[in-house]
């Protein structure tokens, strides 16, 4: 068994008086594709945002790549941010830069590579993410939703991260596009030996991509494990969520 790369322990989150998470704990192992599942408004994205330092939580602890959130030096934070990358739900490409510049910018900021090499790497990642070459110099506003996601995936991969976070990667794509994107993620994760954390409620993704997952239900972790283990579970919420026969 691989060691844990992300450990969330007893995290409680409140927005004002509204409790989102009540002492939840999960662990993600190195090299696996892990899913955070749950209905709308169950706080899946909030949990993801807490792991990637975008959201504060009230109590508990989160450890990523051996660093404890809240007790890191500035250098640690930068190191961590270079070693993970995030694919946001709507791509979040920088609107003032074209696709190639969007993908190049982490390399420009963080490495001293010659410009030609940066372009070469960026073009290669774009190809890996399956973006047509005609789109290389377009601006984000000129791209369709699927193309935006592919360009954003290329940007997320460009620094060769150890962990890749995906926030609803298949939402807003047509079924065929979503399926292709799933295959792409699985392929890239295997080839680059990435640990992937996916927030999703897409059944196809759950069945074909995820190694393990957790289900957030009623502020708690209802289940954590593989799909086969989940199938043995009798809780109606799990069966309903995974569309298993009752």
């Amino acid at each position, binding site marked *: 068994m691989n060691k844990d790369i992300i450990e969330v322990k007893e995290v409680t989150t409140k927005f004002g008086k509204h409790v989102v998470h009540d002492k939840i704990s999960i662990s993600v192992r190195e090299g696996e594709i892990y899913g955070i599942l749950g209905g709308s408004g169950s706080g899946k994205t909030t949990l993801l945002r807490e792991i990637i330092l975008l959201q504060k939580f009230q109590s508990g602890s989160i450890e990523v790549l051996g660093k404890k959130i809240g007790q890191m030096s500035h250098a640690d934070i930068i190191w961590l941010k270079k070693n993970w990358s995030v694919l946001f739900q709507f791509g979040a490409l920088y*609107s003032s830069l074209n696709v190639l510049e969007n993908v190049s910018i982490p*390399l420009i900021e963080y*490495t*001293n*590579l*010659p410009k*030609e*090499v940066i*372009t*070469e*790497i960026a*073009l*290669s*990642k*774009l*190809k*890996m993410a399956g973006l047509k*070459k*005609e789109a*290389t*110099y377009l601006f984000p*506003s000129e791209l369709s939703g699927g193309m935006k996601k592919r360009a954003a995936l290329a940007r997320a991969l460009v620094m*060769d991260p150890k962990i890749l976070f995906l926030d609803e990667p298949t939402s807003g794509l047509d079924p065929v596009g979503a399926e292709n994107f799933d295959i792409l993620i699985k392929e890239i994760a295997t*080839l*680059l030996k990435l640990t992937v954390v996916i927030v999703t409620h897409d059944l196809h993704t759950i069945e074909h991509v995820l190694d393990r997952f957790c289900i957030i239900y009623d502020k708690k972790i209802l289940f954590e494990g593989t799909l086969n283990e989940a199938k043995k579970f009798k809780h109606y919420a799990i069966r309903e969520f995974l569309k298993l026969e009752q």
Partner: protein
Amino acid sequence: MIDFDIQEDDKQCSIKISGELTKETIRSIYPKIKRIKEKTFLIVKMDCAGLTSLDYAGALILADLSASFCEKKSSVLVIGMNPNFKRMMLFARKNLRQKSQVVEIKENFFATPLIKLGKNIIDSIDSFIFFLSFLGESCLQFFRILLTPWKFRYKATAVHIQKSGALAIPIVALTSFLVGVVIAYQSAEQLAKFGANIFIVDMVSISMFREIAPLIAAIVIAGRSASSYTAEIGTMKITEEVDAMRSMGFEPIVFLVLPRIFALLIAMPLIVFFADIIGIMGGMIVAKSNLGISYPEFILRARDVVATKQVLIGLFKAPFFGLLIATIGCFRGFQVTGSTESIGRYTTISVVNAIFWVIVFDALVSVVLTEMGI
């Protein structure tokens, strides 16, 4: 660290790579790679036995190097490579995309300004036509409403009077007070030189009533309400609320535009009158502190010198300012399309337009009235 040894003769080249080939180390050996890439050999041997670490960037460099030799019909031999690295290199090779294959749209230095000028002209014409149709539709809906007055959105109008009128009171008060103070200050010094202290009253009150207060109020409201109208309607367009209204048979003009226009038509004169009073108060305070004119003296003098027409001219302009601001704000809101970015763009345009047309209208009225001798 990295070693990149090249041994070459006319036909053969052998490259020995050892150490770490990663993003951090590529820069130091890149000149060597570039130089060797230019040349042609019959056989190229790449000895990677000493390679201890290879990331995607490094793999890509090697893949690119071997691909460029293959293109020149050299036979490339890669020896001693760790199977993991080899897999990585093959993966990189598969995903290689040369810059030359990608067509970049280059801008022509001389043609670009012309193309941009042409585009701008066409855009302006389009925008003007759209404005005419917007104006036409607004008038049409206005006359329809006149026939069926119970369909007018009274409640929404009241809300907008509160939002763009009543809630603007503090900022209008502050600006017009300060402008009153500034005008009084600047003129006090000059008037004192002539011993014409009392004329500060004429100066401040006539200019305030007739020109300054309406203009200041209009500019503040243009900045405040034109922008919010554009942003509100623009957001509704992007979230398809406007389309939802149309699909239910609700006219967006009746629901969104007319209430805003009427709100400003009603609120503007009130705001202007308020600004008049506060601005003159600012002047009064300076008149007392700098020129020793007491408040009762100021007010009595003002009653004598300010003709009713001065007040009325200022108030007469106010509803037109309101009409201009609301129409421009709403119109630009309806121009928003596609991305959230365009909300920002049109909000800026709307504020600039609104202030510009307020000043143009004020200048026109000023010239016309002076020519008519009023």
